[in-house]
């Protein structure tokens, strides 16, 4: 049975409040730049947490998670592309860009899942944080590959045909994928968390840790995400029934792959397996959209942004996370 108590955590409730505020046309609005600032804070916080935890474990234990993260990042977009083009007859360029989003991850969904697990006092492996950082980027490579293949199939000119477009070369786009601000912050903070002395970290952790103000900031961010999601409801008619359905079915497909990976391949706990499912189920709204806008300009950005922010994010936060947790507990009998 669906356990509704999963919805009664502040982060999720604030998400619903934001959603409601937008639906009833409240004039609630965050100050300019605030959400961008909160995003930076959250990425640094989760990076530091991951780094501190990773410093405590034997790194060879985390290798399996690294390999699994890369594999998930490559496999899920290929499945998404297959569903979009074969079942939905979505245009190949749009399908390439959308697929890349589903191979990557949403840090906010991951953090909401962490809040969900902590509310239930469920422990999870810290390797999952490194998986979060790694999974931001590989899907971009798959997206670029799918787009270039689609261009050939459709007889469109490739990036290299445009002499004024030196920024469109594959190498340049790859560099963008790995130097994206979000990716640099996550990895950089993780490294700082690993190498900084514990005494010095103690001084800043009240600002960043989950025992400090972190979960409060997450709640504020989710309030804004609720408003952003609701603003996109009007786009549903434009993007069509199939894509809205895809935005809810694809997370389930990803979650099943994530559950199998977490439980059978990595041998993680219930909490860790839930988080791997969440990673595989979520869709990026940090690293992938700018990369796709640059590299696959033929794709319609409103399709992937509406799907990632308006459909899949709310689906995962409200239905997905409790469902994946339930499924993970079933796996453990």
């Amino acid at each position, binding site marked *: 049975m669906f356990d509704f108590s999963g919805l009664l955590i502040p982060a999720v409730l604030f998400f619903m409040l934001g959603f409601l505020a937008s639906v009833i046309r409240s004039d609630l609005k965050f100050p300019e730049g605030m959400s961008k600032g909160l995003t930076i804070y959250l990425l640094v916080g989760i990076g530091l947490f991951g780094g501190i935890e990773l410093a405590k474990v034997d790194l060879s234990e985390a290798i399996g998670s690294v390999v699994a993260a890369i594999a998930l990042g490559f496999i899920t977009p290929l499945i998404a592309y297959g569903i979009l083009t074969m079942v939905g007859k979505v245009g190949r360029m749009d399908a390439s860009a959308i697929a890349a989003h589903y191979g990557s991850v949403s840090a906010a969904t991951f953090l909401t899942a962490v809040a969900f697990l902590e509310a239930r006092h469920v422990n999870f492996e810290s390797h999952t944080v490194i998986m979060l950082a790694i999974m931001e980027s590989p899907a971009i490579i798959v997206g670029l590959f799918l787009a270039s293949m689609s261009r050939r199939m459709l007889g469109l000119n490739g990036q290299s045909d445009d002499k004024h477009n030196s920024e469109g070369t594959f190498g340049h786009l790859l560099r963008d994928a790995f130097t994206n601000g979000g990716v640099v912050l996550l990895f950089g903070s993780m490294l700082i968390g690993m190498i900084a002395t514990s005494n010095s970290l103690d001084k800043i952790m009240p600002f960043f840790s989950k025992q400090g103000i972190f979960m409060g900031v997450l709640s504020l961010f989710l309030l804004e995400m609720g408003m*952003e999601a609701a603003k996109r409801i009007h786009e549903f008619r434009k993007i069509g029934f199939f894509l809205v359905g895809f935005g809810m079915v694809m997370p389930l497909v990803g979650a099943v792959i994530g559950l199998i990976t977490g439980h059978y391949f990595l041998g993680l706990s219930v909490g860790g397996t839930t988080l791997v499912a969440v990673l595989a189920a979520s869709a990026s709204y940090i690293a992938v959209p700018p990369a796709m806008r640059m590299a696959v*300009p033929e794709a319609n950005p*409103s399709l992937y942004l509406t799907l990632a922010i308006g459909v899949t994010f709310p689906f995962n936060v409200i239905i997905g996370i409790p469902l994946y947790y339930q499924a993970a507990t079933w796996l453990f009998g």
Partner: protein
Amino acid sequence: MELYAKKVVHIVASADIESRLVKIAQEYNRGGYTIYPARGGGDLGVQSGMLDVDSNIAFMMVVSEKDLDQILQALDRMIKRGYQMIAYVLDAQVLRREKFGVKPS
């Protein structure tokens, strides 16, 4: 006060393609440009400006009539490749002609 005729190229586009527009300004307009954050909506949905991925910019450069065509052609190439933008040209009267690459006579 003497004024000089110039053109203003005004572009509204996603913040993600800012570097492309800057490159055009550097190549054809000696690097002069102004960017301000923008938000709005249209065919492609809402760009609320709250998250990095849904932020627009308004990109403005004052150009000479002789450079205008090359700049518009560069923008047209981007639009044909699929980059989403609104671009239009306005007439302007400027002070200090030398600011725009022409020495005072």
